């Protein structure tokens, strides 16, 4: 057993941390208010190779492992939760399914564009009437000659407003239920595609979260990802990986909250002494630190499973995502509590972190769905 990071992981951590602190953290408050997508940051992230962390070098990626992915997303999210999820989606929800299920042609065509940031990646699973119940989706893709005709609406899509490449799920055969879902690579400039409403979110506000509308959108048949009917499997397989990322994002946000809380508790004086001298504050700090440590271990372990080539790690990924999201909401809440009234003010970072954390329990499978995944593995 070895809990230490490898040389390259350590270096990645220190360099990404430095980059995130210097280049991303200063922008975080501003883009939280404006909701502006951090295009300049994305360019810099691409230059460093953070948009295709595990993608092989021959497709323009950095060829690191999944533990490294988790470390990078954690460090980026610690500085800016919006940028954290932009990176996570680009890597795990767009590059990953193409890398895993794409044909050689698809990989060669799309992965370099995603890794270089030339086209930002996104994924379309959720619909207005299909969230946790993925199979309730209404989007359809009907084969017509050498095209599929895509019709439907996707909602709450991270990166949507700025993305150039989407992995979209749609029914090719509704009768087969979830086995009739297929995945497609859809380019932004495909006729019949339009952007719908931009979501005014509570947190992660700079993520260009929009609705995707497909009206008789013609997708070349070679853009089918995997096989017809393989969509649900691709979706679940992809979510296993992306849940590691979301867990990492949760750890990053939580760590930022703890850092702020520790600092503030040493500076803020009440009843004649710094509030960190009070046991109730210490109690909160100790709990927060332990929660974060446990979450980080779960996240790293799930990532390690993937790196070790363990075929099924759905349970481990779900546990990591569920627990990390859960504690992140609690840790950021405690941070606000330690700050008192100031923590409720937009002047202080913890206010943003508290809002950013809530999404973690909702997207890429709600906490309830994570528990369903965990329980179903137990009851097999």
């Amino acid at each position, binding site marked *: 057993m070895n809990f230490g990071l490898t040389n390259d992981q350590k270096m990645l951590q220190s360099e990404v941390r430095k980059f995130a602190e210097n280049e991303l953290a*200063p*922008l975080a408050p*501003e883009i939280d208010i404006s909701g502006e997508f951090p295009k300049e940051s994305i360019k810099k992230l691409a230059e460093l190779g953070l948009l295709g962390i595990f993608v092989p070098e021959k497709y323009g990626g950095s060829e690191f492992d999944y533990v490294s992915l988790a470390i990078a997303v954690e460090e980026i999210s610690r500085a800016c939760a919006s940028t954290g999820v932009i990176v996570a989606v680009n890597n795990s929800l767009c590059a990953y399914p193409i890398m895993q299920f794409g044909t050689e042609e698809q990989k060669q065509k799309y992965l370099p564009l995603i890794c270089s940031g030339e086209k930002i990646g996104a994924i379309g699973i959720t619909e207005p009437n299909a969230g946790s119940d993925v199979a309730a989706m209404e989007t359809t893709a009907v084969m017509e000659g050498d095209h599929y005709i895509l019709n439907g609406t996707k909602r709450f899509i991270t990166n949507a407003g700025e993305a150039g490449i989407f992995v979209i799920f749609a029914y090719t055969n509704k009768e087969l239920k979830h086995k009739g879902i297929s995945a497609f690579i859809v380019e932004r400039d495909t006729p019949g595609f339009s952007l719908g409403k931009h979501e005014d979110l509570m947190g992660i506000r700079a993520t260009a979260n929009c609705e995707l509308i497909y009206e008789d959108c013609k997708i070349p048949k070679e853009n089918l990802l995997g096989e017809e009917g393989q969509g649900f499997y691709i979706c679940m397989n992809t979510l296993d990986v992306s849940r590691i990322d979301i867990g990492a994002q949760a750890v990053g946000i939580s760590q930022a909250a703890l850092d702020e809380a520790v600092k503030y508790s040493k*500076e803020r004086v009440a009843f004649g002494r710094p509030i960190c001298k009070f046991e109730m504050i210490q109690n909160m700090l100790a709990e927060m630190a332990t929660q974060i440590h446990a979450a980080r271990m779960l996240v790293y372990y799930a990532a390690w499973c993937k790196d070790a080539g363990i075929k099924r790690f759905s349970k481990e990924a779900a546990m990591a995502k569920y627990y990390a999201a859960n504690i992140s909401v609690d840790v950021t809440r405690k941070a606000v509590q330690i700050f008192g009234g100031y923590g409720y003010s937009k*002047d202080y970072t913890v206010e943003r972190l508290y809002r950013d954390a809530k999404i973690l329990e909702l997207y890429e499978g709600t906490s309830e769905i994570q528990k369903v995944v965990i329980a179903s593995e137990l009851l097999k």
Partner: protein
Amino acid sequence: MSDIFVLIEHRQGKIRDISFELLNCGRKLAEKTNSNLTALLLGYNTENFVEKIKSQAHRILVINSEVFKDFNSESYQIALSEILKKETPFITLIGHTACGMDLCPALATQMEFPFTTDCLDVDVVENKVKVTRQMYDGKLNAKLIIRENPSYLFTLRAGNFPSEESSLKTEIINIKSSVTEPDYRKFVEYIEAVAGDVDITKSDIVIGIGRGIKEQENLSMIEEFADNIGGVVACSRPIVDADWLPKDRQVGSSGKTIKPKLYIAIGISGAFQHITGMKGAETIIAINKDPNAPIFNEADYGIVDDLFKVVPVLKEKVMELK
């Protein structure tokens, strides 16, 4: 001989202020060690210089040669090593300036003198030489014991021995020198800073910003505040390094020295290089999150808080009261 020696520093025909501080420190050391103070003056057309420092030392050793018109540490080193070999002074002081930093370590190493740089104070206690200097971004002072030797070389930080009147009887000794500028290092010219649109030395109110400003976009907030209060925006080194403000806005040893009525340091931790440039201000305000920032040692009033919260309110209040 075990005199105290100081090196007179001059540039572009003027004796630099540090020289008088060195003379003051040197006199104090000479008094303490019952020895004499010798000033070393290497220059060209030295009569003026001699006039300025006469009565400040017991002796002035003068080399008057065109080679020493402009500072070149290699030419200085050749000439000074000859003198130091002959004179074997006890302690030689050089300013901790761009010249001193370039010269002292090389000269001391050649002479095999123990040396150290950027001293706040040099003291002789029971035949042991001790110096005080700063470490860790000015947050701590260190007292160092120097390896025992007949001769020592130190560079002295500006600002701790303000120039004082003195009326010593001064012997002036002219030394002939055949030193020529070595081919391996030639002084070419001075390059003056490009003059910008704002002269920060002329304003009564100067707002200085530092690392704490975090990003360039936040400059506009400070500029608005400066406009409101009728001041100009200056900065510490990291801001110039990041190219957020031009070099002529930099306050400090490698930038400008300012003496405004009011200096407001915002997000500046207070490295001594910066302090050197602004401590002549009549009233100094520091706004910084870090209660231990050295800038608070120089300030008359301080606010320990987030500048992004303080400045907007301060701007409003100033507008109200104006």
